[in-house]
């Protein structure tokens, strides 16, 4: 079945890849890598492109164009060729898509196979950094940072919102990036903890502001309900993290370290001007200490670290627990519905409690984004395609269109002056619950493939008043700077991954033991030595080297 035929085909493929790689190298050779000025001669690639296209212009191809694209089909709103999104997009831009529809369940796998086989569609959205790194070596993916001059809206937003530091996170050792990320004006704080507000009222507790307040709140709850754990948490999978990974991440932000879901092995120590190993930081220890106290005082269910989400939610639904990690959607879709059967029960997501870091927030302002197949560079429509991508994903008009649709049909008013409203019969998540037409299912707008990122005003337009209040508190907090870029070469990455895997297992395992009290925190120094035995020092040296050499080369 897999005879010589396959072999032949493959070697031809490999030759193609090789050629693409050499071409990419050639392009790289004459680039100055400052971004956007090094795409080479584009005069043969301008078919269908607009001669004059700038910020605020409506993109419209001068002749009808078709681009192939991967489209993720979300089970909540499965792909539908009849969506108004497609027809309206063609009407506005003269562009239609030839989609490869991939179920969300296995999107990444199909993307890998198609890119690996050299058969991928031109536009490959919904890629999360660093997933694109796997495809760079083969030359299958376009270094998009070379072509930013074709994307005025992208450049405008990066400059206006001061996103250069965020983009630097995506850079590879060659100084380029291969993914066009979604851009947010501000860090979007979504996750916090949900609290049963009726219990707060009954016990006369104020909404906690800090993690110490949370501790006090849990104690008061425990005193009133001695047979229950007031906190039983969820999101113990997926990793990274020892369990209760979202709670860990939130605490990590408050203490100034990476923990749980956010865990990264290196933490940028700005005062020392170098990276340090996260799992050995004092701040990391404090996070463990905090959780350990909750467990030992029987305020937190020890099963929080191991149970499934369903188990945690069942405890919540049965009124056995009063506090759980959440995001905005979960409050509306799950937590509130879960306790609807308990008379008088109410729930709210409280502003993220603060820790030693004070009123700050940490996070990335870049999102998942778009990869472009390297072969697109040779298409005669290449310039038009870049302009189109720039319009749909990065212009104000394009972002508004992808998110809320057609003025007068799916929405009325304006996002900028706060008069935005969904049309009376249209519903989305918590907005307009009485509407009968779902914006995503029926019209195809607010599709995760196209709609993300944008201004804070655009983001705020999707929130019901309750969440808006949360956002207003969070918008008042200072965003911390991100670590400087420290991209690894392919070889370094391979070595680093080996160390990381080993270290992560150990950090997670020991963190769980410290939290659950199976290992006393007095053994912390011994634990740090054990980490060194697992090459944490070599790892950090590698990262610091990468940081230094990137700084020298690309300043």
């Amino acid at each position, binding site marked *: 079945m897999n005879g010589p035929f*396959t072999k032949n085909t493959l070697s031809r493929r490999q030759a193609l890849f090789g050629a693409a790689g050499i071409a990419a190298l050639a392009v790289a050779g004459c680039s100055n890598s400052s971004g956007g000025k090094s795409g080479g001669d584009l005069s043969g690639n301008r078919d269908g492109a607009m001669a004059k296209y700038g910020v605020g212009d409506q993109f419209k191809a001068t002749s009808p164009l078709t681009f192939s694209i991967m489209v993720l089909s979300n089970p*909540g709103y499965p792909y539908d060729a009849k969506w108004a999104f497609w027809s309206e997009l063609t009407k506005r831009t003269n562009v239609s898509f030839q989609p490869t529809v991939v179920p969300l369940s296995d999107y990444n796998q*199909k993307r890998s196979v198609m890119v690996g086989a050299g058969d991928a569609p031109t536009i490959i959205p919904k890629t999360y950094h660093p997933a694109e790194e796997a495809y760079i070596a083969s030359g299958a993916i376009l270094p998009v940072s070379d072509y930013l001059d074709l994307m005025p809206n992208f450049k405008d937003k990066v400059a206006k919102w001061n996103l250069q530091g965020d983009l630097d996170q995506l850079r590879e050792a060659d100084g380029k990036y291969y993914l066009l990320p979604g851009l947010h004006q501000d860090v979007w704080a979504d996750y916090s903890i949900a609290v049963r507000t009726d219990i707060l009222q009954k016990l006369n507790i104020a909404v906690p502001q800090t993690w110490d307040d949370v501790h006090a709140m849990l104690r008061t709850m425990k005193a009133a309900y001695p047979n229950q754990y007031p906190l039983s948490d969820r999101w113990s999978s997926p990793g990274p993290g020892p369990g209760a990974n979202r709670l860990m991440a939130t605490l990590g932000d408050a203490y100034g370290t990476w923990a749980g879901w956010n865990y990264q092995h290196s933490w940028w120590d700005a005062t020392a001007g170098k990276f340090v190993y996260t799992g050995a930081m004092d701040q990391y220890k404090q996070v463990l200490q905090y959780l350990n106290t909750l467990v030992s005082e029987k305020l937190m269910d020890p099963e929080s670290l191991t149970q499934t989400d369903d188990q945690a939610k069942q405890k919540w639904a049965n009124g056995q627990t009063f506090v759980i990690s959440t995001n905005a959607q979960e409050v509306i879709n799950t937590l509130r519905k879960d306790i609807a059967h308990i008379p008088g029960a109410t729930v709210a997501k409280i502003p993220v409690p603060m820790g030693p870091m004070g009123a700050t927030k940490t996070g990335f302002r870049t999102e998942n984004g778009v990869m472009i197949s390297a072969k697109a560079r040779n298409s005669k429509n290449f310039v038009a395609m870049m302009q189109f991508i720039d319009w749909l994903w990065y212009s104000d008009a394009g972002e508004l269109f992808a998110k809320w649709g057609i003025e007068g049909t799916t929405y009325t008013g304006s996002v900028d002056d706060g008069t935005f409203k969904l049309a009376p019969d249209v519903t989305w998540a918590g907005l307009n619950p009485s509407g009968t037409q779902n914006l995503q299912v029926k019209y195809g707008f607010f599709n995760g493939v196209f709609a*993300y990122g944008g201004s804070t005003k655009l983001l705020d337009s999707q929130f019901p008043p309750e969440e808006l209040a949360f956002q207003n508190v969070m918008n008042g907090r200072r965003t911390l700077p991100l670590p400087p870029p420290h991209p690894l070469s392919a070889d370094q990455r391979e070595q680093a991954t080996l160390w990381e895997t080993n270290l992560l297992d150990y950090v997670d395992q020991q963190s769980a033991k410290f939290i659950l009290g199976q290992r006393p925190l007095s053994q912390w120094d011994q634990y740090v030595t054990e980490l060194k035995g697992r090459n944490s020092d070599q790892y950090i040296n590698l990262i610091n080297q990468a940081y230094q050499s990137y700084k020298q080369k690309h300043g």
Partner: protein
Amino acid sequence: MVTISELRPGRKAPAPPAWVRIKPSRGYRVFQVVNAVILIGVVVATLYPFVNILAQSFSSESAIRQGSVNLIPHGFNLTTYKTVMKDSTFWTNYRNTVEYTVVATFISMVLTTCYAYVLSKHHLKGRSVLIGIAVFTMFFNGGLIPNYVLVSQLGLRNTLWAIVLPNAINVFNLLVMKAFFESLPGELEEAAAVDGLTTYGILWRIVLPLSKAVIATMILFYAVSFWNSWFSAFLYMDRSDLFPVTVYLRNLIAGATGAGGMNEGTSSDTSLQVAASIQAVTVVLTVIPILSIYPFIQKYFVSGVMLGAVKG
């Protein structure tokens, strides 16, 4: 010479008269009790998830959330069934599954039977090479991407053949069938040849009528595996109207559990939770047809596999 009816498998031996029966020993009775207990345990363990899903499919969403649904539906309702049955994608994909399963099973049966029959003839030159080629594919394959490139370059993508052809012959099934054919007495075919039947005539008129048991078993094996399969369809189909219902179902469940490996945690793409009751209904509707084949084929099932094994 034996007659065809004597050879027919599944023929019950007459029950021995009462006086022949040996009184079961104490040890044997203990064994029977233990055996029964263990098997009942197995039955419960395998049936419970199914009954649970069945109960969930008739329950209200809030009852499922509280974890109060076990064997009996709570908050009985049929609205979820109505919702799922209104979804046109579901039915399109369902039709695809039926179509893929029927065509694939038919082609697999034709090819597997022919191949197995040829291999069962010891006088065939190059027989061991042919067996070797088949067995080789049990242990080695080209890998995901080469297979994809092959199917793609043959122009099979987005057609039924991408699902049917690469999986047409299952080597395990092939070997079982070969063993079965080998167990048939050669004299029978010689006699048929003397009476003037061609090779194809022998296969069609003598061998196949004697092989109903193994054929029924193989049809069941193939049909179940094609009905349940999702991977080739997911890989080779680029349009959602070509997906089988298994891909639809997998997406539905993965979407709810976040098993898709997407970083939902940091994404603004709100992962819409598909209600547990909708998942349950889809599972039930997907499982029922293939489940309802079993009672009709079961009688061949055991004897078919056993015959190949014991006599081979």
